[in-house]
């Protein structure tokens, strides 16, 4: 069944991803070159999206900035999945034991802290950089995946095919890897897509306050911050980075929705 949100989602994500990948090979202009003479030009044939207050081509900045946003969000989600999923599986395999309690209380602890404030704290203490932004965002992805995995895994553990595996003498670790994880894959994929979009937002937020990737590396959030005072003068300088953020987040959310709808009925195909 063709999902209505699949096509727009795919298109948007492909656009952003494409821009990021192409930027490794080529950008219309060099993002590190400052040409004050060309500053604040409206979109034109030479500069498709115009120039900012330092004469840098906005399109090129967006393309390179896409790299930053995608990379930070990707690795942060990677940390969340890499640490959160095993924790969730362990908690579920324990089935109400001490380990489960420990992991869940740890989760609660992390959730209790406001994510953005802690991220600011981390980057402020350890120095602002893309790497520290990744760590800060990644930390808050871990409990999300841990809780999700644990919940779904717990209900799987009561299923008869898990009992059959236990009767076949398999231990908890083996069962978690061979049986539980593959059956959670769909759920995790959908959540990862959503966390990815949140990661892009978080990175934009951090770089807006100056704590993400530092100049001369372009970043969408910083572009927004720098263009704040120029909104009345040259709105396009703020508009385009904003649109870029919206497009990526929207695209990923639509993709996540479509994925969820597409993957779910397939699971029920068995009946």
């Amino acid at each position, binding site marked *: 069944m063709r999902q209505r949100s699949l096509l727009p989602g795919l298109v948007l994500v492909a656009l952003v991803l494409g821009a990021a990948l192409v930027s490794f090979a080529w950008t219309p202009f060099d993002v590190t070159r400052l040409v004050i003479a060309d500053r604040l030009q409206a979109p034109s044939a030479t500069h498709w999206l115009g120039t900012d207050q330092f004469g840098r081509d906005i399109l090129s900045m967006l393309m390179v900035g896409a790299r930053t946003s995608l990379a930070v969000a990707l690795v942060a989600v990677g940390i969340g999945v890499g640490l959160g999923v095993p924790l969730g599986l362990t908690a579920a395999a324990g089935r109400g034991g001490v380990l489960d309690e420990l992991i869940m209380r740890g989760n609660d602890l992390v959730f209790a802290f406001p994510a953005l404030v802690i991220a600011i704290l981390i980057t402020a203490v350890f120095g602002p950089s893309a790497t520290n932004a990744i760590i800060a965002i990644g930390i808050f992805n871990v409990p999300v995946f841990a809780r999700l995995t644990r919940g779904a895994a717990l209900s799987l553990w009561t299923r008869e*095919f898990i009992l059959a595996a236990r*009767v076949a*003498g398999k231990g908890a670790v083996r069962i978690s890897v061979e049986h539980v994880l593959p059956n959670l894959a769909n759920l995790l994929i959908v959540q990862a897509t959503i966390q990815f979009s949140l990661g892009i937002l978080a990175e934009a937020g951090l770089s807006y306050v100056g704590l993400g990737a530092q100049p001369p590396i372009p970043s969408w959030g910083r572009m927004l911050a720098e263009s704040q005072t120029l909104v009345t003068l040259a709105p396009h300088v703020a508009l385009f980075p904003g649109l870029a953020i919206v497009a990526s987040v929207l695209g990923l959310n639509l993709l996540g929705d479509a994925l969820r709808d597409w993957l779910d009925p397939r699971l029920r195909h068995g009946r």
Partner: protein
Amino acid sequence: MPLLAVDALDVAIGGTPILRDVALRIERGRTLGIIGESGSGKSMTALALMGLLPRGATRSGHLRLDGRDLGTLDEAAMQRVRGADIGMIFQEPMSALNPLHRIDDQVAESLMLHRGLAREPARRAARKALERVGLPASIVSGERYPHQLSGGQRQRVVIAIAIACSPRLLIADEPTTALDVTTQAGVLELLRELQRDEGLSLLFISHDLAVVADMADELVVMKEGQVVQGGSFGTVFGPGSHPYARRLYEVSTRVPLRRQRDIGEQPLLQARGLSCSYPIGARRLFERRERAVAVNALSLDIRPGESVGLVGESGCGKSTLARALLGLQPIDTGSLHFDGTDICAGHTRATRRRVQVVFQDPYGSFDPRHRVARLVAEPLHLLDERPPRAQVRERVERMLQRVGIDSDALDRYPHEFSGGQRQRIAIARALIVEPSLVVLDEAVSALDVSVRAQVLDLLAELADEQRLAYLFISHDLSVVKRVTDRLHVMQAGRIVESGDTEAVFAQASHPYTRQLLAAVPRLPAP
């Protein structure tokens, strides 16, 4: 004029014909039974009558209720018919009741809709209806929620909702299939009473021949969307009956042939004073939670090659006992030995190899993401040395062939098979490590009668071939009677009666056993 006259009913979904030329008659105050296996279209017929077919379904034919053509009614008119003129009860009472509403409100809803009563008068009338179905306020408060009632009580609530507005026709679609045998007897008796006292006509749908034979005045047998034969019990199953009807009768009463098996002397499995419990109630921070005892100081022997039955109703602890014997449930006290080895603390690798299991749910007992070859080979994990890949595949293939599954099944997924085929695959999985004891936990309960007969035949053959011992757990006494040598009856965690199967059936000593046996519907000779 019959109360309900159906002629030339055709239903198709998305172009595929589901029902073809179905015709029925129900007279006032009488019961018509529809018998058929899964996919025969019996539920679809009921839904067609109620106008509750799924979207994309087309219906044609004549449906006359008391002379009134239901086919011409629009949705609004049909809504007035449902509940007021025709009531319906379904198989799964938990799904039919809204878990968030009180039971008296659910019954009152029908009254408020069709009789225009206000909330309080409707509630009062609802309480009367609940009393009529055997749930007076003194025993079960109308303020309770569905999850606070037992299965049988919930089904009674569903019946109360259906009869609240005194409909002339009640459609019951497998109303007692999900219930225990004694509960079933109670609900069937209630339906009979309602028919006697209110002159209710009943359309009773089931796959269980004995139940339908008991309840119905007239019968209709359906197969693949068509009516195969109709008439009284004698007409349908007696001489001159349609071959399909005759086959259904035959498989419902069939006893698999068992050769004289030589049963060992020394017990294979020995349980003494076994007790298992599990915690209930909310988790507390410092105190230990209360525990519910599921198995209470139970003792049991199974000898090599013997087929032992364990019967009991829901909640008696038989599944917990099965898990304890399989090492899946911690044992609180007592002793458990397998062939001399103490397995109280759990099975060893060697003992696990010799005790395997077949579960009830052919849909849930396989990992949906693994292919058949991998699923059947899973117990090979228990062998000391895992054989090479090619050998594993060959072994799986041989085992599947033995249970009647083609070798092209190896690379397919479980959802591609029918319920009966999946149970065969489950049996293959259980037997691939050549165990001595197989625990069959309601292994045939979810299967159609004809498929059930085939699987029971297969199990009997395999038992003879490989000198297998079975622990056959079931709530269905008629099945247990046919396949076991010895029988234990379980109630509330204890075994209340044991003995040779035939002896227990002929002359039960414990009152509970007698109660169970009396409740089993008997299929008369045609």
